[in-house]
């Protein structure tokens, strides 16, 4: 008997819930014919004593803004606010959304709640924002470092324009937009819009791909090291590298040391890296096998990557510089892609730190399982950045 009563009560509750919730039509936001855009603020200087009057590189991006008579923006089609200097690692998924409590956004869309890209040809584009394709006016404004939204700022703070230009975005294309210092001596800034092609290439999922850009400002490496104190430092890259460098790749399996290399992949010549902050072309993708280590089981691998950038004519097998030397006159700069990118090699190593390119994660019945990725390493003045793009992988089975 009591069972029946309980059932009755539950039934009544369910009916009530149905009435209470009622019906409503949900309008989903949709952009027809989108282009996919990801924006990085590469102005990596710090305002210090030498450059006290330079603006703090903390920006607001306005796409299709409306200006009043005095040229002050009052409205914008798309706003990317609190755009901070980019972080060394741009992960393949928008991790900042869930894990950060700061109002600062290290990239666009980053933390912005906007429509993002789909999985395109297997590549997860959730770190790219959907922007209506076509011609857009794009304006980057300097803004003070506080959490007041741009349009709520006092009018005198809304007038410092960094760049005001137009860009053309084609439908269904993937773009990365960089704000760069173009000339170190004149401090001229500009933008660099790259139309990516990784989703159109026939890339194998058993190879890890990487391409390189040196988007440093003109005259950075050549300038006196005393003028570079305001720039963020990263190993021996801190004083810049020469305009033409060779890239050598090595793989290691030992944690935080270079004791156990993968012998087939040591000091392997990959190609040349030329400084370029003007010509908008995608660099060649180099690759190495995901399971290059013969001892790995084909599911998981612990290899990490090291890239030696050496000036033309030099070879890392015959390196004249000591491995602890920070000042190599721009001739040698190693980059370690190891662990989370925050732990350095044991001992004094002059390598710049980046996270491992290979994604190890619980997928299917394997925990962890290693996945190959497509990577971009960008060198801007004294610093280096890694952008990793991943494919979609099977969800974990517990």
């Amino acid at each position, binding site marked *: 008997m009591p069972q029946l009563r309980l059932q009755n009560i539950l039934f009544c509750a369910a009916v009530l819930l149905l009435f209470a919730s009622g019906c409503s039509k949900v309008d989903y936001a949709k952009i027809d014919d989108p282009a996919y855009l990801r924006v990085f603020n590469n102005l990596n200087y*710090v*305002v*210090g*004593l*030498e450059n*006290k*009057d330079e603006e*703090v590189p903390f920006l607001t991006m306005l796409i299709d803004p409306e200006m009043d008579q005095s040229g002050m923006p009052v409205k914008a089609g798309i706003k990317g606010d609190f755009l901070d200097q980019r972080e060394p690692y741009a992960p393949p998924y928008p991790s900042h959304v869930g894990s950060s409590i700061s109002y600062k956004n290290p990239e666009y869309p980053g933390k912005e709640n906007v429509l993002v890209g789909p999985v395109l040809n297997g590549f997860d584009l959730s770190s790219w924002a959907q922007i209506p394709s076509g011609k857009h006016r794009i304006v980057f404004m300097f803004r*003070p*470092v*506080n959490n007041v939204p741009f349009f709520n700022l006092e009018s005198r703070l809304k007038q410092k324009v960094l760049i005001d230009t137009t860009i053309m975005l084609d439908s269904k294309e993937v773009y990365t937009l960089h704000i760069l210092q173009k000339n170190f001596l004149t401090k001229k800034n500009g933008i660099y819009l790259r139309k990516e092609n990784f989703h159109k290439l026939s890339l194998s999922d058993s190879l890890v791909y990487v391409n390189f850009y040196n988007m440093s400002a003109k005259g950075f490496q050549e300038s006196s090291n*005393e003028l570079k*104190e*305001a720039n963020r430092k990263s190993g021996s890259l801190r004083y810049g590298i020469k305009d033409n460098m060779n890239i050598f790749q090595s793989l290691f399996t030992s944690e935080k040391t270079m004791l156990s290399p993968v012998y087939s992949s040591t000091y392997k010549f990959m190609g040349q890296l030329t400084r370029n902050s003007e010509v908008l072309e995608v660099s060649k993708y180099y690759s190495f096998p995901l399971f290059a280590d013969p001892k790995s089981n084909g599911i998981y691998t612990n290899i990490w990557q090291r890239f030696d950038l050496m000036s033309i004519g030099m070879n890392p097998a015959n390196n004249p510089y000591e491995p602890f030397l920070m000042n190599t006159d721009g001739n040698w700069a190693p980059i370690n892609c190891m662990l989370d990118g925050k732990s350095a090699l044991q001992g004094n190593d002059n390598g710049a730190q980046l996270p491992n390119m290979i994604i190890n994660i619980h997928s299917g019945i394997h925990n962890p399982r290693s996945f190959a990725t497509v990577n971009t390493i960008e060198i801007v003045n004294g610093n280096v950045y890694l952008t990793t793009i991943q494919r979609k992988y099977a969800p974990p089975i517990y």
Partner: protein
Amino acid sequence: MNTRKLITQALLLIPVFLLLVLQSCKHNDLEIEKENENFRLATDFIKNNYDMTLFYAAVEKVGLTDKLKENGPFTLLVPNDAAFRELGINRPSDFSKINQDSLKSLVERHILTRRLLFSDMPHNGVDVRYATLAGTEVYASMAGYAPGGEAFAVNDLYFNGSPVTRKDVPLANGTLHMLNKVMKYTPVMTIQAWLAARPKYSIFVAGLKKFGFWDQLATAGPFTVFAPENEGLKAEGITEASIAEMDVQKYRGTRLFGSYILPKTHFFLSDFEVFKVNNSQEFLARKIDNDTWFSFVSITKNFFTKVITGGVNLRTAPSYPNEVYGSAGADVPALSDHLFDNGVLHEVKGVLLRPEQALKN
């Protein structure tokens, strides 16, 4: 068994007894001091504060007492009495000796036409400008914390190089920050005109004229000038007569006199403290134009009083191995951080280089 049960029950009663005993204590009415909800108007606040008597006297003298009772909001940057005494103003009557228009402008320059709380300032902002009642602007800078050092925030505030010793004092019609230094700004005057009007810098002026650094000080600049006074220069044997006899071709004028001027900069002494905190930049080694040597500026902040003093010397290279020459110190806070439309001037004692050290080989 029975006894045990009894004891257990008795034990349970203990807290009840305790409660009863405590209850019987005498309860005085507990008086909690109520926070003052009726903040006073700016005028009343500074009138009633013993460390702001001179500033109040100045406000009264220039007839701003009624203005500061209005709704505002205002932000008062009030120098304490010690700051005025350092300038030679010891009692209210001393304000009568000052040109009344200048005094009015001075007071108005210490009042912002807005409520500026510390939290309104952009984080680690440097040279953020705010409008004053006089129609001028003050430069506000914040020494917040080094990147990643949020837990060890310094959060010091400076207005035109004057340290704030007490920030965010609430007023009914605004807020108040206490300074330990009077902000000095001479409107519509260049560094050149100011130096020319002061005989105690006549030797320095003569040197600048002789070696061709004088004319630039009338231009827009900006410049940071460390002006050595006559006394110190004479002690090292530099006089107007000796400068007149110098052969310009034989001396490195850039080192001898150019080193006192940092062109294209406007540094308050507090800026060095601000960047020490924000960027861990301990000093500035700035290459002298058309020379290989460096002007080296560093400062110290008194931990307790927040007073900032500093100095400049000459170095053959920014860091070791180098040779260090001379020393000119800005040791009196009242004499540093003179703001002009074309820069900042600090009065210093001491000499950077003796003429014989500046001889060309």
